[in-house]
Structures are given as structure tokens and as C-alpha cells.
């Protein structure tokens, strides 16, 4: 009985340590699950927009995401309907005093890279899955998040849009560390 209690206690302690130790993917997931990413990494036939909500009592921040105002669609290639491309409005830079967001090759991520509703583990597995991510190795992913214009836009979104909490530099440090570790995925 004593031995069982000891084992149970050790198991609980290990479990608590595991629960309290950040997984290398955690800071990455925090960024990828931000609306700046999710609004175009949708599982729907359209992009979304979002509204930041700050709880007046607790100060907690949440986001309400909703269908893109002009009811635009994904289209076959993610660049919109053939008769109404994303580029009809979204320019290579933010314009109209930042109210109109823009970056080069503005488009939706493919459906295979839709991240809505994924837990951290599934998000991690999806990100690494070369059958879903356009054949990108971990090294390719590092390059992508380091240099892709749409990724970088997430930290310079213009207007009153907020950005993921970690800076892009901090994100890159975490991302490279995760990739160097072989891209481990959390259990849940």
C-alpha cells in the first residue's frame, strides 16, 4: 500500500512538472492561433475577420471572429473568386492609413493548412505534415515564417489591429529551437 502510494505520488509529481513545463511548441502555437494567422488559415470557403474583446472586469482578451465583411470567397487557388480576387482590394502594403490591410500575394492558406479548432498537438502535426504544408521540411518552415511577406505582415498589420504577443524576433528564436529539436509535438 505504501509503495503504491509512493508511486502514485511520484507519478502525480511528474505529471505536475510536465504540466508546468512549457512545451517547445507552446509559444509557437500561441502565435499560430492568433487571429492574425487564423483569419486566413480557415477551414471554410472564406476568410474571416476578427474583433478584439477586452473583458471590462478581468481585462481578459478574447477575439470574436466572423465572416469577411464583403462575403468574399476562397476560390480555387485561395486568391478569391476569378471575378473578385483578394488583390482587388488588398494591395502590397497597408493602405488607407492602415485601415486596409495589405501585403504581397495576399491570399488564404490552403484548406489543408486550416488551423481553426485544432488543439496544439493537431496544429503541430498539421504544420509538419508535408502532405498538407506544401512539401515544406522543418528547415523550409523556418524560412517561411522568417521571410514570407504574409507572415511578417502579422506583426505589422496596420490600423488598430493587434499582433501576437511575442515579437517576431522572439517567435523566430522559439521556432528555430523547436525545429532544431526535431519539431516535437505536445501530447494534447
Amino acid at each position: 500500500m505504501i509503495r503504491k502510494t509512493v508511486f502514485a505520488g511520484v507519478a502525480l509529481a511528474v505529471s505536475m512538472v510536465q504540466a508546468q513545463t512549457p512545451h517547445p511548441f507552446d509559444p509557437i502555437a500561441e502565435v499560430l492561433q492568433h487571429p492574425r494567422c487564423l483569419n486566413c488559415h480557415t477551414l471554410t470557403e472564406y476568410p474571416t475577420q476578427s474583433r478584439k474583446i477586452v473583458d471590462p472586469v478581468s481585462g481578459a482578451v478574447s477575439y470574436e471572429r466572423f465572416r469577411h465583411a464583403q462575403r468574399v470567397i476562397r476560390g480555387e487557388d485561395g486568391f478569391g473568386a476569378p471575378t473578385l480576387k483578394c488583390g482587388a482590394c488588398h494591395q502590397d502594403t497597408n493602405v488607407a492609413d492602415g485601415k486596409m490591410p495589405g501585403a504581397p500575394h495576399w491570399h488564404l492558406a490552403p484548406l489543408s493548412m486550416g488551423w481553426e479548432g485544432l488543439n496544439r498537438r493537431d496544429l503541430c502535426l498539421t504544420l509538419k505534415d508535408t502532405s498538407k504544408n506544401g512539401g515544406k521540411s522543418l528547415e523550409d518552415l523556418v524560412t517561411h515564417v522568417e521571410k514570407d511577406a504574409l507572415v511578417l505582415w502579422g506583426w505589422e498589420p496596420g490600423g488598430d489591429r493587434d499582433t501576437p504577443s511575442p515579437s517576431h524576433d522572439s517567435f523566430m528564436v522559439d521556432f528555430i529551437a523547436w525545429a532544431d529539436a526535431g519539431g516535437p509535438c505536445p501530447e494534447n
Partner: protein
Amino acid sequence: MTKETVVFTVNDRVEQTVVSPEKPLLWVLRDELDLTGSKYGCGRALCGACTVHVDGQPTRACVTPVKAVEGKRVTTIEALSETELGARVQRAWKSLNVPQCGYCQSGQIMAVVALLRAIPKPTDQNIDEALSGNICRCGMYPRIRKAVHELAAGGFA
């Protein structure tokens, strides 16, 4: 901001204008080139009243920096009647009394011409997808849809 020379084609005519490269195309068209058919609605690409074609694609001129059309072909509502399809669309609009106040209609017509070029016989869904970004405060959407279907059926030739 420093002005630059920007060269682009408007309605088959080469234009060379010295402007701030960030100036929205809409204001170059309206103020510099006196092409006032494209309307200012929201200034944020939300309403579609300013729609022109850039290399054949509907584009919101109010948020397009003029430098973005350097070397490209811009078509505005003023030149639309010079094409067979454009003239047919304009006849349809007149015949079916599509406009009410009319303010959004140059943008609507530009979007419809692009739609019919890309999809000659569009479904209601195709129409919605092409025109969802063109807002009509008078609510003339049923008339627009009817006109598009009649045009697709060969009407107003």
C-alpha cells in the same frame, strides 16, 4: 511625399503623371485625368463604388496606390461603351432601370463586365461571388441579377 512620374495606360491611352506614388488611383483618375465616372464611396475598399479594371481584373481604385498600376492597363467606366459587351451592359442597365440613385452603378457595371468576360453564363452563386463587394444602398440587387441573366442569355445585343 516626393512626387514621381508614373506611366500607365488608361482606356487605351498612355498617361504620364507626376504624383505622389502613394496617391490612390481613384484620385489620379478623377483629379488629374478628369475621369470622374469612378466614384468615391468609402475610401477603404468596402463598397466597390470606385471599381475599375486593372489588366482586366476588377480593382478598388480608392485603395490602389497609383504606383501599383505602373505599366498596367486601367479601364474605367468612361471607355466601357467602346466594347460590345460594355455597351450591352449599359443598354441592359438603361432598359431594366437597374440604377435607382445610381451612385454605385459604375462600380457595379465594371464588376458585371468582368464577371461576364470570365463566366459568360453565370449562376446566381457566380453573380453573388463576383458582386458581393459592390454595395448598393438602394438595394437594386434583384435588378442587377436579372440584368446579368438577360445579358448572359444574349439580350441587349
